[in-house]
């Protein structure tokens, strides 16, 4: 009978059961019993103490699942037994030690973050609070420095975090957020990402090798005037706050103001929606390219420092991962590589919570739009130029609940990391 078979199989294991401190190779199975007979089999199994089976849910009635932790040495035999008896099971946890290691790591990171900062990355903050946290990161990490690359229209400093472990004039990557002020999840994510990069250096192999080779420049609030305005007056404000001569309307769309197909007039581009020449429009491109000091400051900084290999910019919402071009609907020369890298990055994003990003050129994916930042960077020799539109796809839109900040930042970082790993590997 089955019971005799059971005792025979496992008696050979008695001597082989080791006393391990860890849970390496331990598996947790969920067993679905179909009848009383099967329940009795499992109760017999439970009674064999030498197997050191740890029932998280004990066998009691056929309708209830049975969860059991099985030490590595017994895994195969227990499964063989279940299969031979026709008892259904599924694997809840494939490697328990892996789960425990991850939990420990998460807790350590969280504790470190609590020790070192009371900043709540899972909440939306004012500009002053953000700037304070930039100071804090710079003071806490020797390889992080806060630099000012210019001033906004209303004279607010444009602060960039420089991540550099040494060298001079190393290859660099650029990352900005909040160029459109109402896209709050981007500034919030940028802050989390800054903290993550800083704390991962020295512990995460990928980040460590990246910063050992390259510098990273992060501008978390690219449009501080607009950002303050979204806090004080109009949550839906997108543009800068510059006065426009001859108009009662204020502000220029900073992502139509770059010198790339500026003004939407290009012989190569078929007519279509692009940028507006009306000052009151939310996509007003401005009187001339780089008319906005927020844009010019970045252009000057990147040109003066030189040797940038990647230009990454964060927007919301729509869940898109895009590369040039926006001002024309033809493919960039590096189309194949950018498309492939884009897809890989989107897969990385998806791997965490299942969030889907669409990949493609700006023109094909969202709409034709001239004067955009990644078109400028690409046409100025920065091959790895990507623009991301983060969560969500319209349910909350710009008003993404704060509870989604950290999940969004986490998944976005995986995508950016994938891109940066490629950039690192391709840069000499």
């Amino acid at each position, binding site marked *: 009978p089955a019971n005799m078979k059971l005792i025979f199989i496992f008696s050979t294991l008695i001597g082989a059961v080791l006393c391990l401190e860890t849970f390496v190779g331990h598996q947790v199975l969920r067993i679905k019993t179909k009848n009383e007979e099967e329940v009795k089999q499992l109760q017999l199994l439970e009674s064999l103490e030498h197997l050191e089976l740890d029932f998280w849910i004990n066998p009691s009635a056929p309708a209830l699942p049975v969860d059991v932790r099985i030490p590595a040495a017994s895994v195969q035999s227990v499964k063989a037994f279940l299969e031979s008896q026709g008892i259904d099971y599924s694997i809840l946890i494939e490697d328990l030690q892996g789960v425990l290691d991850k939990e420990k790591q998460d807790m350590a990171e969280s504790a470190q973050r609590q020790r070192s900062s009371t900043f709540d990355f899972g909440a939306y903050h004012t500009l002053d609070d953000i700037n304070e946290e930039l100071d804090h990161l710079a003071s806490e990490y020797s390889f992080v420095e806060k630099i000012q690359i210019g001033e906004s229209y209303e004279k607010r400093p444009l602060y960039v975090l420089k991540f550099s472990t040494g060298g001079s004039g190393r290859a660099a990557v650029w990352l900005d957020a909040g160029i459109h002020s109402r896209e709050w999840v981007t500034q919030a994510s940028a802050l989390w990402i800054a903290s993550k990069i800083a704390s991962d250096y020295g512990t995460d192999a990928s980040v460590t090798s990246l910063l050992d080779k390259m510098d990273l420049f992060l501008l978390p609030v690219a449009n501080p005037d607009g950002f303050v305005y979204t806090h004080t007056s109009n949550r839906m404000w997108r543009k800068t706050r510059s006065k426009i001569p001859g108009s009662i309307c204020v502000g220029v769309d900073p992502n139509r103001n770059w010198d790339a197909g500026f003004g939407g007039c290009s012989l190569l581009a078929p007519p279509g929606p692009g940028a507006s020449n009306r000052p009151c429009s939310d996509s007003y491109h401005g009187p001339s390219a780089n008319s906005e000091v927020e844009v010019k400051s970045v252009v000057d900084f990147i040109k003066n420092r030189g040797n940038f290999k990647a230009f990454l910019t964060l927007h919301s919402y729509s869940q898109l991962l895009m590369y040039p071009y926006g001002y024309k609907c033809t493919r960039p020369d590096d189309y194949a590589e950018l498309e492939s890298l884009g897809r890989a990055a989107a897969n990385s994003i998806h791997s965490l919570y299942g969030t889907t990003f669409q990949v493609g050129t700006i023109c094909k994916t969202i*709409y034709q739009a001239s004067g955009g930042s990644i078109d400028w960077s690409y046409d100025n020799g920065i091959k790895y130029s990507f623009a991301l539109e983060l969560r969500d796809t319209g349910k909350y*839109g710009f*008003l993404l609940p704060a509870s989604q900040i950290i999940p969004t930042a986490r998944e976005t970082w995986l995508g950016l990391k994938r891109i940066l790993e490629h950039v690192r590997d391709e840069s000499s």
Partner: protein
Amino acid sequence: DIDGVGHKYCLELELEDVLDKDRTVSCTAEVLYPLGSKTSAPDVQVTVQGELRSTEEADQEFYNRIRSLEKELVAENIPDSHGNVPPELEPIHLLASVASGYVIWQNSTENTKFHLAQVKHVKQVKRSDEDLQFDFVVLLHEMVSQEVLPWELTLLWHPQRGARVSRD
């Protein structure tokens, strides 16, 4: 392409229940955008394959709660700047989405993509008949132009008679 008439799109869609992510229902639709005319809404024919979840109990509860309010309901900024919606205002947010859906449909072309960005203001208006009336000011975000446009609209709702936009 239908000569002299417009552009027709045949769609296969999956509807996801906003309040129950695991619940989906398939449907097919035909959308006809009329040529040239800017004042005419696209023609839409929809067939739902399957059943929509019954919300009778929740509907009745909400209806009774609003009807029994001493003072008319008034609220602003749903969601607020941080994306929060107080639980008791969730149904109002949903009704605003429905009302906005109607306005969006009436104003859509092949070159627009609208979403409800925020309910700026809502005011309940007590009626002598059985309907609930809500006067909304909503903000609609149009993706292509990136404009955020305020829109005034009035929604009538009744648990059995459903939702109707009476002014838009």
